[in-house]
């Protein structure tokens, strides 16, 4: 049984078909990558899966349950978490607080309980802080726990987004270009981190332009071009697929 199944997913903006009847499956424990030239529709697929945009046709199934039409927060609650290509941190909050927000769907103190600080609130707050600090350590940003998110370096921000997403206890994490703007050393560490996330039992689905990273860590790759899936399979096969080479490098001009 697939953990996440995408079926005939279609989204058009006016006349432009951004995602065109795309099908694929992600199995539990996999590291799967979604690649394609700029404007191929990768981020749109992320937005459709996480409920930030509504598909025109088709949909997504999580543990064989349809999640199409659910709100983003409901989808997060089910166990799908994500990061953003254009980093979306809570800049005026500390690193620890950013991760603590991620604990939201797994905790329950509501407005009333918080306002009057009922006994459960104090206990839960401590647990939230501790769990979040553990995650900050896991990701390697614990030393910056008290810093405001807006004061972090670019690499640290990318890591913080991952820590925050992990705090929601997802079954699958969607990483949108996690290596964008990272140097070689940071990219290497990111690869290691993705393995460690997978080893925690969390399935990883990433959009990435860094082919070195994608080919090294992915179990399977889906290739998208102009909204259509043009190839799917293990990295070695994808690298030799003619359609993929054509999409990335353009068609070879035939000489007469």
């Amino acid at each position: 049984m697939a953990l996440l199944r995408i079926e005939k997913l279609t989204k058009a903006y006016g006349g432009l078909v951004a995602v065109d009847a795309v099908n694929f499956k992600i199995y539990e424990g996999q590291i799967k990558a979604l690649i394609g030239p700029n404007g191929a529709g990768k981020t749109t697929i992320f937005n459709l899966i996480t409920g930030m945009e509504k598909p025109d046709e088709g949909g997504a199934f999580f543990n064989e349950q349809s999640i199409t039409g659910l709100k983003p927060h409901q989808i997060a609650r089910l166990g799908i978490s994500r990061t953003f290509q254009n980093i979306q941190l809570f800049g005026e909050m500390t690193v620890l607080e950013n991760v603590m927000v991620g604990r939201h769907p797994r905790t329950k103190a509501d407005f009333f309980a918080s306002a009057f600080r009922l006994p459960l609130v104090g206990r839960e707050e401590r647990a939230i802080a501790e769990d979040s600090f553990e995650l900050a350590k896991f990701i390697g940003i614990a030393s910056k726990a008290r810093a405001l998110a807006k004061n972090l370096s670019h690499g640290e921000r990318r890591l913080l987004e991952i820590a925050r997403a992990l705090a929601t206890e997802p079954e699958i994490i969607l990483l949108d270009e996690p290596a964008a703007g990272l140097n070689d050393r940071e990219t290497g560490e990111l690869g290691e981190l993705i393995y460690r996330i997978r080893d925690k039992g969390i399935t990883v689905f990433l959009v990435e332009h860094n082919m070195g990273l994608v080919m090294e860590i992915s179990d399977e790759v889906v290739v998208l071009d102009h909204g259509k899936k043009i190839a799917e399979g293990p990295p070695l096969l994808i690298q030799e697929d003619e359609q993929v080479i054509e999409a990335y490098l353009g068609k070879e001009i035939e000489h007469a």
Partner: protein
Amino acid sequence: MQVKENGILKKYIPLAVFALAIFLLPSHISNYEMKTLIFVGINAIVAMGLCLLMGYAGQISIGHAAFYGIGAYTSAIITTTYGLSVWIGFLAAILLSGLVALLIGIPSLRLKGHYLAMATLGFGEIMFVLFVEMEQLTGGTEGILSIPPLSIGKFIFATSQQIYYVVWIVTILLLVVALNVIHSRVGRALRAVHGSEIAAQAMGVNTAKYKIQIFVLSAVYAGIAGSLYAHFVNFINPTPFTLNFSIILVIIVVVGGMSSIWGALAGAFVMTLLPEYLRVFQEYNLIIYALILMSVMIFMPSGLVPGFLNLINQFKQREGIWRFLESKN
């Protein structure tokens, strides 16, 4: 964990100091000053609610005078026209201001930024017209007279000092509630909405629900203040509930510093006391008032409380540099 314990201390020490100062003050000041401080407390309550909405959840309201008015009129009508107890009036003021906020909030909180500001401004104007025109209920421009003062059983809060204590106890309780909300899962969710709404949603925060809840809480603060106001001055007409007061409330929150609930308190003190102290300048008082406000915004754009905290931090850092340099020699 270390981080946590410090947080709680940080939260309650200023609160205890502030509460102590407030309770010791009446024996050192005149009756007139006490009356002015009652207004500071009432304004502070509305401002704290608005600060939760603006500073923490990032939603703008330019119609908060309307909720203040709803609280005042509800209390006034229930205790005079219907002759019921002031506590029923007080509860009804809370319920009605919250209920109206719920009904207004559901459609208007779908709007963002300037559009939400416009919607709340429109709501404020509509409520003002209703206060004036629903004469049978509100007494029109004449208003409602002889609203009874607050009382418990046979004990009536009649003197300025008694009212001062009632108003400030309520203010401090509401400050505690606000601090509790801010330093909680809910408060973080609200600040997350302010920081990045889509990221908050992706973290499982039901942003629509939280925005409505904080809007309702903020309106309830205004309603409570309105009710206290009605029972303090014993007479209301539509004049205090205009757009003008809504804007003053926004100024209180911005001058004090939106990012801190203490800012709302500081803003209420400054903005309520300043006109009193500037009276000595007679016809120039408005000019000086405006100059002071402009200076605050130019030199402390984040508001008084965050501004002073920044100054203290900078000072500490400089001290640190000197200590560092001295230790090297």
